């Protein structure tokens, strides 16, 4: 009997392509749009700030080094010359600066363009650059003379910072200051005969490293929005089944079922199971899409299926509650209100559109007491490597939530007409 009710519900979904499209295709489209559009912002380890730097070299650095070495080779003993040559080749300043900006830890937010000196004026007018670093002629040559021979004055780089990009310009300034400090420290060590490796400052220290605050693994924007859109759109299943159930009452199909001596409670359980099963199917279909298209793989399948089942059960509970209330008040308005207002509200609180809880812990707490929010937290935890035990709180909440809804629905369900 229950299978008959569930099968009938499946056929009704299948015969309504528009509804099916909204339930299945819409979340897929939303995942693609949101996951792609907001990937720069959402990707863990990446930054919403992009620093674009133009580097103008007015003279080749290796040529300057060669010129310097050529000049000093007659004045210094060969063994000293070899030592200087080795040191210089290991720490050419502009080469070192380029390495800082192209370091692995910087590549996500620093874009370094090598600009021909002839394009200098053009670049200066280009507002997209955060900073323009100009290396004057003889910079490396003068610097080597200053370091090795103690002659000449320490040369300077010309830095143009874009005032419109305060944060980015600040970052570049900070990097250059630290670079300068490191360079000066190197000069000091060299002049005083101290081995630089003893207190070498690593690149990481110089530039700092972008790390995710959460020590656990991070998730991609596609993964985040796959979860967000699934937990949001699956809620619509409850609204759809609720409105189908009310249509059965209004057209007297429900009476027909009751007159055939099927208990109203069988019908009630049929609605609950339909909601649970179709929510489960919808979840699996959309997550399969995200797996095939975005390669989102669940590291712990048992935890994944446990969460999906618990969430689906809570959606089944919502479906049967909406059906019971609409039967009670004899109106479909409750399901319309749920689908148009409540789902949106729950989705915002649950973090489907934006990780609101990351910024406002209060909303995180509220979100976790919504079925979609709790499911979302559980799914994200699983993707970050948590086990079934770690997400236990969310699963228990989902099950308690579902049971509570079923009990309220049973109390609301009109007993007079279904009593035997």
């Amino acid at each position, binding site marked *: *009997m229950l299978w*008959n009710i569930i099968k*009938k519900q499946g*056929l*009704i979904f299948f*015969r*309504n392509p528009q509804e099916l499209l909204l339930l299945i295709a819409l979340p897929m489209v939303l995942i693609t749009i949101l996951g792609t559009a907001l990937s720069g912002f959402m990707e863990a380890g990446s930054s919403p700030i992009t620093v674009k730097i133009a580097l103008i070299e007015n003279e080749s650095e290796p040529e300057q080094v060669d010129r310097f070495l050529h000049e000093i080779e007659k004045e210094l003993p060969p063994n000293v010359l070899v030592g200087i040559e080795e040191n210089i080749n290991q720490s050419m300043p502009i080469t070192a600066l380029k390495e800082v900006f192209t370091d692995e830890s910087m590549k996500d937010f620093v874009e370094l363009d090598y600009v021909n000196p002839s394009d200098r004026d053009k670049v200066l007018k280009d507002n997209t650059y955060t900073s323009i670093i100009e290396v004057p002629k003889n910079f490396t040559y003068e610097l080597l003379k200053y370091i090795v021979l103690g002659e000449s004055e320490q040369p300077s780089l010309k830095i143009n910072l874009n005032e419109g990009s305060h944060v980015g310009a600040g970052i570049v300034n900070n990097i250059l200051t630290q670079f300068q400090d490191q360079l000066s420290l190197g000069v000091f060590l060299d002049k005083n005969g101290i081995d630089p490796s003893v207190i070498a400052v690593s690149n990481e220290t110089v530039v700092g490293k972008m790390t995710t605050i959460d020590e656990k693994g991070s998730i991609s924007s596609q993964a985040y929005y796959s979860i967000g859109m699934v937990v949001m759109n699956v809620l619509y299943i409850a609204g759809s089944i609720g409105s189908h159930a009310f249509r059965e009452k*209004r*057209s*007297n*199909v429900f*009476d*027909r*079922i*009751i*007159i*055939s*001596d*099927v208990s109203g409670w069988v019908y009630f359980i049929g609605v609950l199971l339909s909601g649970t099963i179709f929510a489960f199917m919808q979840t699996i279909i959309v997550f399969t899409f995200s797996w095939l298209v975005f390669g989102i793989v669940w590291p712990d399948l048992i935890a994944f299926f446990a969460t999906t089942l618990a969430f689906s059960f809570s959606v089944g509970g919502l479906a049967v509650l909406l059906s019971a209330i609409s039967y009670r008040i004899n109106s479909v308005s409750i399901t319309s209100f749920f689908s148009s207002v409540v789902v949106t509200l729950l989705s915002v609180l649950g973090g489907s559109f934006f990780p609101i809880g990351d910024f406002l812990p209060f909303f995180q707490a509220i979100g976790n007491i919504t079925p979609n929010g709790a499911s979302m937290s559980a799914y994200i935890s699983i993707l970050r490597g948590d086990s079934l035990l770690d997400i236990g709180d969310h699963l228990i909440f989902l099950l308690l939530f579902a049971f509570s809804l079923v009990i309220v629905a049973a109390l609301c369900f009109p007993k*007079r*007409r279904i*009593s*035997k």
Partner: protein
Amino acid sequence: MIELVDLTKKFKDAYAVKNLNMFIEKGEIVGLLGPNGAGKSTAISMLSSLLDPTGGDVRYDNKSIIKSPSAFRKVVGMVPQEIALYEDLTAEENLRFFGRIYQLRGKELNRKIDEVLEQIGLTDRRKEVVKKYSGGMKRRLNIGVALLHDPEVIIMDEPTVGIDPQSRNYILETVKRFNEERKMTVLYTSHYMEEVEFLCDRIYIMDKGNLIASGTKEEIKRILSSENTISIKAERFSTDFIESIKNHPSVNRITVGEKEILIIVPRAVNMFSEVIRIAEQFHIELSSVDNKAPTLEDVFLHLTGRALRD
């Protein structure tokens, strides 16, 4: 077989059905007549165990349906006034769904589906979704669903509302055939007098929640045996003429149409000469004045002062 004993349903302060007493014998077609809002559907809901009465009882084979509906539910088929079908499913899928609900399975279910589709003339359209059907086809399938489990009793609540005459005729013939071939007991409600006259052995007439008459067609028509119905026809009637006829001491009831006036008068009174006299007085050119044999509609008019479809 089925008895309604002082059946009463009260919604807040208003009685939808008040002290209704009826009986239906096995194999009978019984008509329940009444205008919209007479209480027919409420009575049927209580009879079919869908609605608890405020008072009274419904008995099937001397057992209360109200207290224990299961036995009755197994032998009753219900044809509601609404199209109680899944419009997104095909005729066959609908029959399969309801057949399974009636515990039919496998070959037996397939056989019954084929049989019912044949009976309601939808075999060729069995694979089409119901929403593509005409109103008449939906009505036929609505009846077909109620026949799946071979019910002994079938309750039909205005099963021909809103359909074309051809489909209506088909349904009436089908009901008649089931009654004759299967000895199926039928309770048929309608506000179409001609349907009830065609189908029913006995008739109950309800108005405003009360039973106002009952009996065979002939018995009910005899209610008018002491009265005559006179039809007065003309191209047009003046207000003075109508008022004069209405106020005539011998006229018990009057129904005014555009070109016809019906009056109910005592059989002993010769109203013909009176009508002609009044017409001459108000310069009305009469086209005919006839004495009509009483119909159930006349009886209803006589009893309630309203036409059935008012």
